[in-house]
């Protein structure tokens, strides 16, 4: 009985999860480097929200080694990722959530 309840809860949670949680976090959890570290590198390179979002979207749609902000070592270890299967709209929603979750603005004291 408990097993069914647990299974049902997990199923509902998966159904309610956002695109970012389902399609980004789920994969990155398996990597050594957290999503926050990627964010910091993006911000370090592109500075503003608009520039970061444009660069991220561009990379996820057409991943290339030249566009990657990963250090050489990590790039060798993990390689360049596959192009996203998400639609542009879904991708934009996921990137927005990514920005909101890790942005420095409003968090510094």
């Amino acid at each position: 009985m408990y097993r069914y309840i647990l299974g049902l809860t997990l199923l509902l949670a998966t159904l309610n999860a956002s695109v970012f949680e389902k399609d980004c976090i789920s994969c990155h959890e398996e990597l050594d480097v957290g999503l926050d570290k990627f964010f910091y590198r993006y911000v370090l390179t592109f500075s503003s929200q608009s520039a970061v979002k444009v660069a991220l979207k561009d990379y996820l749609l057409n991943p290339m080694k030249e566009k990657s902000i990963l250090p050489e070592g990590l790039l060798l270890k993990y390689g360049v990722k596959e192009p996203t299967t998400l639609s542009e709209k879904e991708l934009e929603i996921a990137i927005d959530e990514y920005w909101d979750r890790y942005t420095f603005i409003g968090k510094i004291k």
Partner: protein
Amino acid sequence: MSALKSWDTSLQIREKRTLLYFGVLYFSLSLAILSLFSIGYFFNAKDAMLQNMRLELNVKANTQVEALRKFHIDFDKTRLYPRNDEFNSGIFDADGVEIFSLLKTTPELFKIIYLKNGLIHYIKEPQSHYLGTKYLVLEVEDDGLWRDKALKYIAYFWSISLFILGVGGYFLLKLFLKPMKEAIALLDRFIKDTTHELNTPINAILTNIEMLEDESLDKSVEQKLNRIKIGAMTVANLYQDLTYLTLGHKIASSDERVEMYELLKERLEYVKPMCDSKRLKTSIKGDESFLFIDRKKISKLVDNLLSNAIKYNKVGGEINIRVFKNHFQICDSGRGIDPDKLKDIFKRYSRANSSVGGFGIGLSIVSAIAKEYGLEMELNSTKEGTCIDIFWD
């Protein structure tokens, strides 16, 4: 020569006004130039201060960039922005959006360093965008020392410059005045010299005419003689005017109680030949009226007013005199005085109409005598004629 010296060749109001305009223009221009220099110096001093501050603040900005680098790396451990007692700072992204700021005012990110509202802002663009920082802004308070120093130097500069300009202006004015004074002195000297030579021949002409009048003369000779008499009287009047101008201030007044109606009647009779020559109708009305004054001077005043009333009258016109208790009026039917010339009409060498002869000293003498005895004058002129009223207490 004593007459020469006694003649007041000091500048008249017109010349003084010219000098005033010159003075105002000279000092306005001087002040404008001084102001421009001062403003230039002030902004130069400000720029120099900002350049010095730029070097100083750049060192501090590098320290802050290093602190931001550590903060970026350690953001998981601490969220406390690195502060510095020597300055306030703020960080802004490439779109100018504030990431975090301790600044008192919103900075102008497109500048490098500037002073505004007593605060100096220095904007540095770090090579790496730690926490997204495109612009790091440092803010320090301006101690104002440079301003005090600059203002002190400007005050010294103004004091010395004004002194030099004042002295220079004084000598420039003297230089400027010299030809004007010389021209006036030359004119006055000429009039005085001429005056000295006029008296004897005029008296000879008038005396001989009077002797001839007693004899029975042919009508046409009598007319010619009358014209000579008018001419001689005009010159005699001019001689008296000039004598008044040259010696008027030296002659002691012999004031007495003068009955004005009788005096005006007498003076009107005196100028009758001149009135007749222009076929002017004359009238005098009024009552007894007394004025305590030098008889010669009031006669001169009346003669000059009548002379003008005749001179500027039309042929066949009128001259009407009215005498009241403390006031008399002389009206003519001439063409009137141009409103632009009314304000200058009592000044020496001023003439209402240049087509009529004369030196333009008649009304100047009228004005001088009126001023000496506190008489008030009122001049009303239209195209139909001119009335002048003389009032006394």
